C-alpha cells in the first residue's frame, strides 16, 4: 500500500487543509463574533475599540491568506 499512496504529500495536504481550510473560517467567525456577538455594543450601542481591533486583526489575517492563495495560483504555472 505504501507504494501506492504518497503518505508524505497526503499528510501535508491534510495538515495544510486543516490549518487553512478550517482555521481561516474559524478566524473569520471570531471576527464576526467580535463585531456582532453578545456584549459587543455598550449601553449607547457603540462597539468597544478592543473588539474592533480584534475583528480587524482577524479579517486582516484572512485577507492576507487570500492574497497568498492567489500568489500560489499564479505561481503554480512554474
Amino acid at each position, binding site marked *: 500500500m505504501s507504494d501506492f499512496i504518497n503518505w508524505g504529500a*497526503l499528510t501535508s495536504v491534510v495538515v495544510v487543509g486543516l490549518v487553512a*481550510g*478550517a482555521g*481561516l473560517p*474559524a478566524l473569520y467567525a471570531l471576527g*464576526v463574533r467580535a463585531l456582532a456577538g453578545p456584549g459587543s455594543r455598550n449601553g449607547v450601542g457603540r462597539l468597544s475599540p478592543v473588539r474592533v481591533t480584534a475583528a480587524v486583526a482577524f479579517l486582516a489575517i484572512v485577507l492576507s491568506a487570500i492574497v497568498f492563495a492567489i500568489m500560489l495560483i499564479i505561481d503554480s*504555472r512554474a
Partner: protein
Amino acid sequence: MTEPVLLVLVVATALTFDFTNGFHDTGNAMATSIATRALKPKQAVLLSASLNLVGAFLSLAVAATIAKGIVNAGVVTLDVVLGGLVGAIVWNLLTWVLGIPSSSSHALVGGVVGAVLAAVGSDGVQWDGLVAKVLLPALLAPLVAILVGAIATGLVVRATKDVPQDTNDRMFRWGQIGSASLVSLAHGTNDAQKSMGIILLALIAADAVPQDSSVPFWVVLSCALAIGLGTYTGGWRVIRTLGKGLVELEPRQGMAAETSSAAVILASSHFGYSLSTTHVATGSILGSGVGMRGASVRWHIASRMFFAWSVTVPAAAAVGAACYYLDQTIGSYAVLGLLAVVSVGIFAWSRRKPVNHKNVNDDWDAGTESLIAESYIDHDPSLLVMSKKRRKMEKKRRKRLAKLVKQAKLEDQARLAEQNAQREADHVGLH
C-alpha cells in the same frame, strides 16, 4: 485520413472538452453561493466564468503531456487523443444530465486509457500509476474534504452560535463569495491547462509547431474562452445537486465548505498530490453537513455520486476504446458523428426536465406550496408562472382531488341513504 484534418478535429474536440469541463464544474465553486443566495444564479456563473477566464491566462507553462505516468508517452497518437477526448466528453455529458458532479480530469484519463488499451493493449498502460494517481486519490479526496469541511463548519458554528442569524448570514455570504472566487480561479488555471496541453501535443505531433514550442497565444485564448463560456452556460443540474441535494446549506456552512475546498485544492496542487476539484468540493459540502448539529445529509444522493466516481474511469475508458476502434475501422469522422449524435440525444433528454437559473434553487422535494412560498419570499412573480410540465402535473393533481371528493360525496350519500332507510325501518318497526 490526412494529418491536417485530424489535427483540426482534435483541436475542435479538445475545445469542446474544455467547454464541458467548465460547464460541468461551475457547481464546484458556485453551488453553495447560489444555494444560500449569496449571489443570484446569473451573477454567480458570470463571476465564476470571468475568474476561470482570468485563471486560464495565468497558466502559461503548459507541458505537452497527457496522462503522464499513467499511459506510456510513446503510444499517445492523435487518434488515441481523439478517442480519449470523446470518451471524456460523453461521460461529462451523461453525468451532467443525471445531475452528478464528476471529475473531468478522471474522465479524460479514463478515455485515454481506453483508447490506449484499444490501440496497443494493456502494455501501454502503467497500472501502478493509474491506481496511485487516479483511483486511490478518488477515494481519499472526499474523505480529506469531509474531514476539513466538518471541522471548519464545527468551529464556525461554535464561534457564531450567539450572533444574530441575519448578521451571520450577511457576513458569511461575503466570505462565501471570496472563497468561491478562489476556487474558480484555481479551476481556470488547472483545468484550462489540460486542454492547452492536449492541443499543444496535437500541434507537435502534426509538426505544426517545433518540438520545444511554448503554447501559441491563440491556443491560450481559445481555451480560456471555451472554459469561460462553458462555466457561464452553467451546469445547472450539477449546481442543483451540489447546492440543494446533498445538504440544506446556510451561509456559514457554505463559507466553511468553500474555504475548505479552496485550501485542500491549493494544498494538493502545491504538494503535487493532485486531488480532483470535484471530489474535494463535494466532500467539503458533505462535511459542512456533518459538522453542523441539526443539519441532515442526504447520504443516498452522496452514495450515487461515489458510485459514479468509481465507474468514471472504466466507463470513459469503454467509450474511449470504442471510439478508437471506430476511428481505425471507419475513420475519424465516424467518431465525431458518434459524438454529435450522443450530444444531441443527451441534450434532448435534458429538455424533458430542464434545470436552469430559475428553478435551480427550488426545494429538493418540491411541492406547489413551497414553490408559492418561495416566490412570495423572493417577490419574484416569474416563479409563479407554471411550466408546461408543472401545469400538467397540477391538472392531474386537481383531477385526482376532484375524483376523491366525488367519491367521498358518493360515500356520504350512500351512508345517508342507509341511515334514512334504517330510520324508516325503525319507524315502521315502532308502529
